[in-house]
């Protein structure tokens, strides 16, 4: 430790740089980082400047200071666009940001940043050896965004027991989910939950609106059955369909004037 402090205070640039490299080799990233930080302005315009910059970003990465490492990898890429390390820096920036991505139920700002950094990387270095890794990380992150959106939509469905106002909210939110993630694996469940919410919404509605809303259940069910003929929710959905059909029939008796079941989206 005494040795380290001596070097830190020393004015000898070459000795300091050598020490920084050796601390880096020994995986003492905090010490290596502190030395490099001191050295950086003095190395400007010297041949060691490029490598020092690159290693400095890595010391932050190894200390799990991902926001800082991302910042330094980006600035490395901007300062030395022609460097042999530029590709690695671009990938490491994206990787740093993806490490910052929090769990699904929190703000996903970092996830979005990481995803756009990955896209940028893939666009610029389509032949990169890091491509497989980048694709894998990208899939994980986009999966996260999808799960978050589904959880939020489902949250409205969960609250329907508490307040019937949420039935309509659930229908709208689940539909929004389908529009945003048309190929999601959760769409099957979302479609079923939407039928359930719409059925209850119709059931809780005033009589003058019921017919129209039950018909909506029937139309939703028809789309659902076409899309997921072997769905595990099929039996329950079928039940809601029959109940809606009966309700429409009953309502039809009271007001025979209103005739055909039109599909009004």
């Amino acid at each position: 430790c005494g040795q380290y402090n001596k070097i830190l205070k020393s004015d000898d640039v070459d000795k300091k740089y050598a020490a920084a490299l050796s601390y880096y080799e020994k995986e003492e990233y905090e010490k290596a980082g502190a030395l490099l930080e001191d050295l950086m302005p003095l190395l400007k315009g010297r041949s060691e400047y490029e490598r020092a910059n690159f290693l400095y970003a890595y010391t932050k990465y190894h200390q799990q200071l991902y926001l800082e490492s991302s910042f330094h990898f980006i600035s490395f890429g901007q300062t030395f666009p022609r460097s042999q390390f530029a590709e690695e820096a671009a990938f490491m920036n994206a990787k740093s940001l993806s490490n910052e991505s929090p769990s699904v139920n929190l703000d996903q700002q970092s996830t979005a940043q990481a995803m756009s950094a990955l896209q940028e990387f893939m666009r610029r270095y389509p032949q990169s050896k890091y491509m497989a890794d980048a694709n894998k990380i990208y899939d994980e992150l986009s999966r996260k965004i999808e799960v978050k959106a589904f959880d939020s939509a489902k949250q409205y469905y969960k609250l329907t027991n508490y307040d019937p106002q949420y039935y309509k909210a659930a229908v709208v939110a689940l539909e929004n989910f389908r529009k945003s993630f048309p190929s999601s694996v959760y769409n099957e469940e979302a479609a079923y939950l939407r039928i359930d919410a719409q059925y209850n919404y119709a059931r809780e509605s005033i009589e003058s609106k019921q017919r129209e809303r039950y018909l909506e259940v029937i139309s939703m069910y028809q789309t659902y059955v076409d899309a997921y003929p072997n769905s595990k929710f099929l039996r329950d959905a079928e039940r809601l369909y029959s109940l809606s059909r009966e309700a429409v029939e009953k309502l039809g008796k009271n007001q025979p004037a209103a005739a055909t079941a039109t599909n009004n989206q």
Partner: protein
Amino acid sequence: QIRLGVGSNAATSVDYANPKKYEIGGITVSGAKFLDPTTLVSLTGLKVGDEIDVPGDAISSAIQKLWDQGILGGVDVRATKIEGNKIFLDFFLTERPRLSRFDFTGATKAQAEDLQKQISLNKGRVVTDALLNSTRTTVQKFFQDKGYLNAQVVIRQTPDSVIANSVALDIRVDKGEKVRIGELDIERLNPVNEVKGGLGSLISGIWKEEEEGFSETKLKRQLKKTKEKKFYKVFTGAKFNRTEYEADKKLLIDFYNKEGYRDAVIVSDSIYKMSEDRIGIKIVVDEGRRYYYRNITWSGNYLYDDAMLARVLGLEKGDVYNREELDKRLNYNPSGNDITSLYMDDGYLFFQIEPVEVAVEGDSIDIEMRLSEGSQATVNSITVAGNTKTSDHVILRELRTLPGQNFSRSALIRSQRELSNLGYFDPEKIGMEPVPNPENGTVDIRYTVEERPNDQITLSGGWGGGLGAVGTVGLVLNNFSLRKATNFKEWRPVPSGDGQRLALNIQANGKRYQSYSLSFTEPWLGGRRPNSLTVSLSKSIQRFNQRDEFSQIQESFIDISGASVNLGRRLRWPDDYFTLSNSLSYFRYNMSNGSTIFRGYAEADKIRDANNVSFITSFARSSIDNPTYTRSGSSIGLNVTFTPPYSLFKSTVNNFQWIEFHKWMFDASWFHSLSGNGKLVLNTRAHFGFIGTYSSKGEIGPFERFKLGGSGLGGGSFIVATDYIGLRGYEDESITPNGAGGIAFNKYVAELRYPVSLNPAATVFVLGFAEAGNNFGNYREYDPFKLYRSVGVGARVFMAAFGLLGFDYGWGLDTVPGLPGANGGQFHFIIGQQIR
């Protein structure tokens, strides 16, 4: 400095009008003595073999990149050779000295530190003229803002011998005299008297003062930051600050506009030197005349009729014309109704209203309100951002704007209130942004929040309670997550984000007094309904040593263990501010020599062990706007505790083996803001409590009684099965009819609060209070108007990490019989938010 030209020995020329593609044949760097050429070339971003346009972007960006490093004084690019389509570039660099260090002379140490933050002198940077100039200007402005209008700054450069090619800067400041405003003069140009026969004359009787115009003192008061120095104005700095002065001139005009003088302008203003340290200001205002509303008409309204809109607007013919007030009543009125919310609460998001002055005659203005109602918008998607700790579902379940509903501004504001009441977010930074999609008539709402710490840790040592030293360790986690507790990765530093509450408290003083408590609350049991579940466990042991009448040391102890389960529910009827909670609790008391514990209650000696099974139901309504500094709303609660009526089944039941009683507590608190800015708040409270038995022969035991007086923290011999109620201005527990405690109390409080700081990290407010209360030993003596009164002042500090702390100085006005010193001036320390 930047030239792309023909080198002295090159025979080719570059045609600037026709950019041509070249391949770089070579890059050289010249002129650099201290810098490494290879690195400089790599910094340019150019490589041999690159195809570039000459002239073109590639070279200018190369120059920019070198320049951005801040280590060069000049960059000059030349084409040394052009062979066919190959170009050879040379970067001729001028190196400039770098900054090695800088010092201030003529500035104090504190000023130098502030200046260092403002100026952009980084060590190692190249010293350029632009850098020196901007530094000089920044330093000069810094002192001018402090009132040194004549400050002079000179920067001297000296070569630094330690590091080659570097200079040291000495920034010399001559502050000069501090300049203050010696005189401030506001002259009114042709003050117009009211025109006879106009609308103004109808009400001129009321506005007598203004008829003669405003006094100069009143006008000077409108200049908030620009004040003149007078010998009697001890606290007036009378500094002159240009930006503040400009803002003050605007305030003066705003004041005139507010009073109906909508034509008022500042015709001229001059600043002149009186002496070395005094300047004078003269402002000339042309007031113009005062205007009044005449006819207000409406157009474009299909939903509401004119009469309805006029009622909401609340302006009458003859009212003084005030554009600011008009805008408030049209667009957003925080303290009442406005036209826009009438529409916006019903989904008319695209509603617009424009007041147009259709006629100005004399002092009367006719206004036509042109409305565009637009169509109703439904909410489409809701997003939340900024929650780095709190889970989405905890936030979503609080929001009142639901997808599929009509857009409503009041639902938006209610959502903000609900989020703020969670306590997890900075209330000043909760953002709500409706993003309309006019093509399909929907609106997306984006909420943004900023997390703030709200866990509390208490580590305290105290002296008191007749126990000597007492140590406390407390931990309250207000946004705990039990679900995440199993995953150590989610601990940062504790598992959090699910809105659960975990409280742990340990208090001990060696063998004599120990108390442990643990409670856990899940506000949304099962996540589907706002039904809360609270489980709490507690245990306390107290040992007493007291001399009896024969001077024998009597040892006694009381050991209480308890557990309780509480289920709470938010109600939607009578309105959704109501909550109902039910709990079942069990306490077991184990004790000896009870009469020394419950002093004055001799029969307590017979009690060895006692059991208390009780059912508590509480019905409450709370609509307070902000829990830390409340400005409006009220909270009312009725809390009833009862045990099974054992005595009705068994005639010879031991009174205390199974304790029986019923207890009623009622608390009400109202908040009203009294000042226009909502800062001065009046809080009025009333509290009542009663304990009774089931049969007329029944006896109320020593447990669960009331002790009144002091801070209400249980200062004396603190006993768990007792309710301590504060009454400032009297000693702790001094108003207690017998040793064991009273069975009926009432208390009334009026408190005026004013905030010193509303910073969410530390909210501070001061208060003045008047209160009165009494505590009765039996119902024959009960009289709600026989009270012990007190008045006093105090302060409270709310810090996110420690909760609420405060002290009060109260003066008890009535003497307590038998306790001559119990009233009069008393200091009280307050820890935690108190209900009663």
